[in-house]
């Protein structure tokens, strides 16, 4: 059962009709519906193309949060071999909202860290919907530090609504944990490449998206605040999220213009969830190219150019 987003309703109708016809044909051998069904398929494809050719920023948010969109775990399983999860912050707990560990990307050992949202009720609860607590950031910090000592490039996969706003998280220093994790990103003398695969939610994303290169999937979003949060503060009405999404300029395309995103990774027609394999392959190609770009750079150069990249941000704005 495909999960349709609200704006995909007309598409759901057409695809549903085609499916119905084929089901009828299966029960009744005399019926030949293939031509009609194929016509509907064609119509659906055109509609899908139209819908996705001009996704509004809010629709992009919806696609980026699509429950069937490939998540960190899917990427780790498909992209890497010998993934060896490493757990815990050595301080308080293991935070399952953050996946991390050693792995090989085309035989090359790397450290991979990412937010995992979960794919069903149980795993979403275990993963806390991809919202990390301080332990998650402290684990990430520990792993980045280890990668630095052993000369392993770090690959981070960003997909989080934001850091978890909870009582315990605050008591254990959520802000300090994020600040230290961001600081660690800026200190390591190994390549750090980040890919925003879904939602880049504020400080919770920055904490390990402060990389030498930041790539974004075509329909991924990355923002200082969620459109709903922004709408409730600036419009005093959370239902104005469409306007807020528009104003925040949170799409990969806008961020690319602003210099925050270095590379846009194309998604298959209809979004990553319609062909996860194709998406993951595109991410592999991008990761290899980005890492190749940084090969042979000295520790000092990696640190210096990473810092300069962030110091220089903000010199260009968007066209009116």
């Amino acid at each position, binding site marked *: 059962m495909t999960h349709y987003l609200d704006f995909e309703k007309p598409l759901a109708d057409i695809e549903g009709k085609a499916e119905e016809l084929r089901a009828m044909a299966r029960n009744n051998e005399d019926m030949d519906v293939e031509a009609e069904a194929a016509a509907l398929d064609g119509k659906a494809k055109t509609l899908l193309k139209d819908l996705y050719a001009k996704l509004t920023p809010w629709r992009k948010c919806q696609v980026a949060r699509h429950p069937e969109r490939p998540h960190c775990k899917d990427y780790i399983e498909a992209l890497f071999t010998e993934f060896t999860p490493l757990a815990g912050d050595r301080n308080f707990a293991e935070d399952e909202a953050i996946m991390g560990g050693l792995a090989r990307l085309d035989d090359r050992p790397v450290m991979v860290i990412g937010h995992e949202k979960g794919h069903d009720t149980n795993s979403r609860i275990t993963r806390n919907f991809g919202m990390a607590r301080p332990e998650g950031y402290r684990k990430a910090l520990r792993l980045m530090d280890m990668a630095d000592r052993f000369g392993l490039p770090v690959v981070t996969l960003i997909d989080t609504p934001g850091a978890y706003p909870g009582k315990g998280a605050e008591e254990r220093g*959520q802000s300090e944990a994020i*600040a230290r994790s961001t600081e660690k990103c800026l200190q390591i003398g190994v390549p750090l490449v980040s890919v925003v695969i879904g939602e880049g939610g504020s400080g919770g994303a920055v904490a390990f998206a402060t990389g030498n290169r930041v790539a974004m999937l075509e329909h991924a979003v990355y923002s200082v605040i969620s459109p709903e949060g922004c709408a409730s503060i600036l419009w005093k009405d959370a239902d104005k999220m469409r306007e807020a999404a528009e104003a925040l300029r949170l799409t990969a395309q806008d961020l690319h213009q602003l210099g925050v995103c270095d590379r846009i990774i194309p998604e298959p027609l209809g979004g990553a969830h319609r062909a996860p394999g194709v998406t993951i392959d595109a991410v592999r190609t991008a990761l290899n190219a980005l890492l190749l770009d940084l090969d042979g750079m000295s520790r000092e150069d990696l640190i210096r150019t990473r810092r300069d990249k962030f110091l220089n941000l903000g010199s260009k704005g968007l066209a009116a």
Partner: protein
Amino acid sequence: MNWITNYVRPRINSIFSRREVPENLWSKCDDCGTMLFHREISDNLNVCTNCGHHMHITPRDRFLALFDGGVFNELAVPEPLADPLHFRDQKRYPDRMKAAQKASHEKEAMLVAAGEIGRTPIVAAAQDFSFMGGSMGMYVGNAIIAAAQEAVKLGRPLVLFSAAGGARMQEGILSLMQMPRTTVAVQMLKEAGLPYIVVLTHPTTGGVTASYAMLGDVQIAEPNALICFAGPRVIEQTIREKLPEGFQRAEYLLEHGMLDRVTDRRKMREELIVITRMLMGMSPATWGDLPPPGPEDLKPEPNAALDDTAK
């Protein structure tokens, strides 16, 4: 009769209007409700004389009280793009800026200055909560970077007073990018071996707390200041329970090991002098009423601590 209407009457009127009580002579403590005379408040650094509640103080007033004789050099901050996203909510961002500038008579939400405290040369930066919630946008980021660079150039400690609701939404992703940018600024200080002291004032929240405001060598807060990443309302909505009294307040953070000290604003200057002088390897301060520094004293002096390491 003309001279009466044209000359005498306005004179009489002006005498009477002058006698009217000017507004804002009295204000009420936000906490205990005591009526306080404006002189009384400003002499007490905007701390209630009755209950000790710390009220808002502008960066300029803070600096006037902090620096010896109220003398400081304001540093220029590189000007960022005015409205990079062409942001518009119910108002246009440039209009909101203009309104904030008019209300505060300040250019932006952070003031940076170099000067001396107890004859200890420092660079200081203070964030202004009354300017668009003290929000961290590109200007604030540039201000912190400029402050750190100046501190490194002069070999002085940086004292930063934080106060902000968080990142400035009107600058979108570019405001979020101030988290790594300001972190780089802090690293410049650390690499130069210079102390970075953060004074967290009410309120310090969001992306500000999650970057430069939590990276100090010494973390001091003013009493009862709200210091958090996620605000109490957001947490209550998420976990659907009431939060304990004093949650996310300075004293609570001190108890949970997130701060070094909670210090009364009226004792802050003395404490900053003591700490910076020790960290800079300087002799103990001489206490007493010093005359304000002359122009000679404001010139950078060679840094003893740095010279020692150079040997």
